[in-house]
C-alpha cells in the first residue's frame, strides 16, 4: 500500500521518520518493508515472523509490526492512503546466479575472510612455469604461505592434484611452510579422501556469498582512474 505516513521503530536502536509519502509492503511471512520514493533499500523493515496489530485511531490507520527475540516494534501510521492492494503470489522459480571462477577469485580478493579469518591475499594468477597459473597465493597469521585453488563446480580429485602440483612448484621457490586450500561450493567424496591424505584443506565457498560480495562491494578500483 502507499500513502502519507509517519514511521517509528524501537528495538536495538530507535528511529523516527516524519510524515511523507511511501510504499509499505507486508508479505505473507510477516516481513515488512517501508520504501521511500527513492533508493533501492527500505528505510525501515522487519524480518519475517512479525505479529501485527492494526487499528484506526484519531483518523489514522495505525499498523504495528512486532517481534520478540530481540524485541522490535515498527509503527507505521497513515493519515492518507493512496492505494492498497492485496495479492496472493506464487513463486516457485529457481534463483540461479551465474558466478564464474574469475568472479569467485575477485570476491575472495575483496573479502579474504571467505577463505579464512586470518587469510591475507598476496598475489593472484601467479605463473608457476610448467605447473600453470595458480589462482591466489596468500599468507596466514602464522606466516605460512597459503595456495588457493578455486573451483565453481564441486571440486574433484583432479582439482586436488592440481593444487598438489602448485604447492610443489611454490615449494621450490620459498623456504616458508605451505598450506593448500581448495575453495569451492563443495568437494566430491573421492576428493575428500585424497585431500586429507595429502594434508590439504577444503574451504566451502558458496556462489551466493561471492555474488553478494561482488554486488555490495563498495571500494572502487584504482584502474578506474588510469589515463586512457
Amino acid at each position, binding site marked *: 500500500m502507499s500513502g502519507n505516513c509517519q514511521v517509528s521503530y524501537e528495538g536495538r536502536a530507535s528511529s523516527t521518520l516524519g510524515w511523507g509519502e511511501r510504499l509499505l509492503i507486508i508479505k505473507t511471512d510477516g516481513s515488512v518493508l517501508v520504501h521511500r520514493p527513492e533508493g533501492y533499500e527500505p528505510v525501515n523493515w522487519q524480518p519475517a515472523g512479525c505479529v501485527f496489530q492494526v487499528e484506526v485511531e484519531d483518523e489514522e490507520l495505525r499498523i504495528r509490526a512486532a517481534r520478540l527475540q530481540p524485541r522490535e516494534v515498527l509503527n507505521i501510521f497513515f493519515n492518507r492512503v493512496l492505494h492498497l492492494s492485496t495479492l496472493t503470489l506464487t513463486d516457485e522459480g529457481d534463483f540461479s546466479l551465474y558466478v564464474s571462477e574469475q568472479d569467485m577469485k575477485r570476491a575472495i580478493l575483496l573479502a579474504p575472510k571467505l577463505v579464512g579469518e586470518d587469510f591475507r*591475499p598476496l598475489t593472484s594468477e601467479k*605463473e608457476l612455469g610448467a605447473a600453470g597459473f595458480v589462482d591466489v597465493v596468500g599468507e596466514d597469521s602464522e606466516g605460512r604461505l597459503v595456495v588457493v585453488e578455486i573451483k565453481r563446480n564441486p571440486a574433484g580429485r583432479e582439482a586436488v592434484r592440481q593444487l598438489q602440483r602448485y604447492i610443489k612448484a611454490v615449494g621450490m621457490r620459498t623456504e616458508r611452510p605451505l598450506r593448500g586450500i581448495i575453495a569451492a561450493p563443495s568437494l566430491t567424496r573421492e576428493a575428500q579422501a585424497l585431500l586429507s591424505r595429502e594434508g590439504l584443506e577444503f574451504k566451502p565457498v558458496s556462489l551466493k556469498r561471492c555474488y553478494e560480495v561482488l554486488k555490495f562491494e563498495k571500494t572502487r578500483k*584504482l584502474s578506474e582512474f*588510469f589515463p586512457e
Partner: protein
Amino acid sequence: MFRLVISDSRAWKNLMAAISTLVEEASFDVKPEGLALRAMDPSHVAMVDFEYPKESFQEYECTEPSKLCLDIGDMLKLMRRVEAGETLELTLDPQTNHLNMKLTGKYKRRFSLPLLQPSVSEVPTPKLTFDAQIKMDADCLNDAITDISNVSDQVKIEADEEKLVLTGLSETGNVVVEFERANQAVLDFQVKGEAKALYGVSFLQDMVKAGAASSKVVSVEFSTDKPVKIDFELPLQGKLTYYLAPRLE
C-alpha cells in the same frame, strides 16, 4: 652487473616492509640511475610507487637495466634482526640467479635469495588532480589513523580551507580527528574549496604505519571521491608514494 651497498640497513628494511604491505613479490626496475618499483595489491585497490636513486646508496653499480624479482617476505625474514650501523651489500649472481645479501656489523652474515620470474605488466599511475594537498608530520597522521581504526573499518577524510578532518564512523560513536591549518603538525596546507572521500582503514593504516617508519613528513593529497595519494618524503629524491582508491558512500 649489479651491486649496491646501503649504509643504513634498518632504513632499507623499513622500506621493504612498506612495499610488502601491498605485494609479496617485488619486481624492481634496476637501472644505472637507481631502483624503482611500482606495484598494485592483488585486488587492485592500492598501489605503491617506490624510487631510490643511486645517490641514496653508499655504493651503487649497475651496468645495464634489468628487472629483479624477489620474495620480499623472505628478504624481511632474513633481515629480522638488523642492528643500527650494519651495512647491507646486495649483489646479483647471474650464474645461480640469486641475489646475494651481506650484512656487516659486529660480524658478517651472508644470505642468498632466489630470483623469481619478473611480472611483465607495467603499472601506470592514476591520472589525478588534487583539490586538497596537506603536508604534515607522519607520526601524527599515523596516530590519527590508529585512533580511527579502533572504532571503524572506514575513514571519511574531509578538507576545507581551514582544516583537515578524519572521521571514523561506527554504531557506538564517531571518532573525529581534526588538524587545523595552524596546527603544529601541519607543515603545508593547500586546499581549494572542499574535498571529501571515504577510504578503507585497513590499507590506510598499513601504508601510513610503514611509511612513518621511513619518513617524518607525509603529504596527503585528494579530491572528492577520488583516490588519495600519500607521499612520504625520502632524502635525496627518493620516493615512497601510495595511492588508495575511494569507497562508494
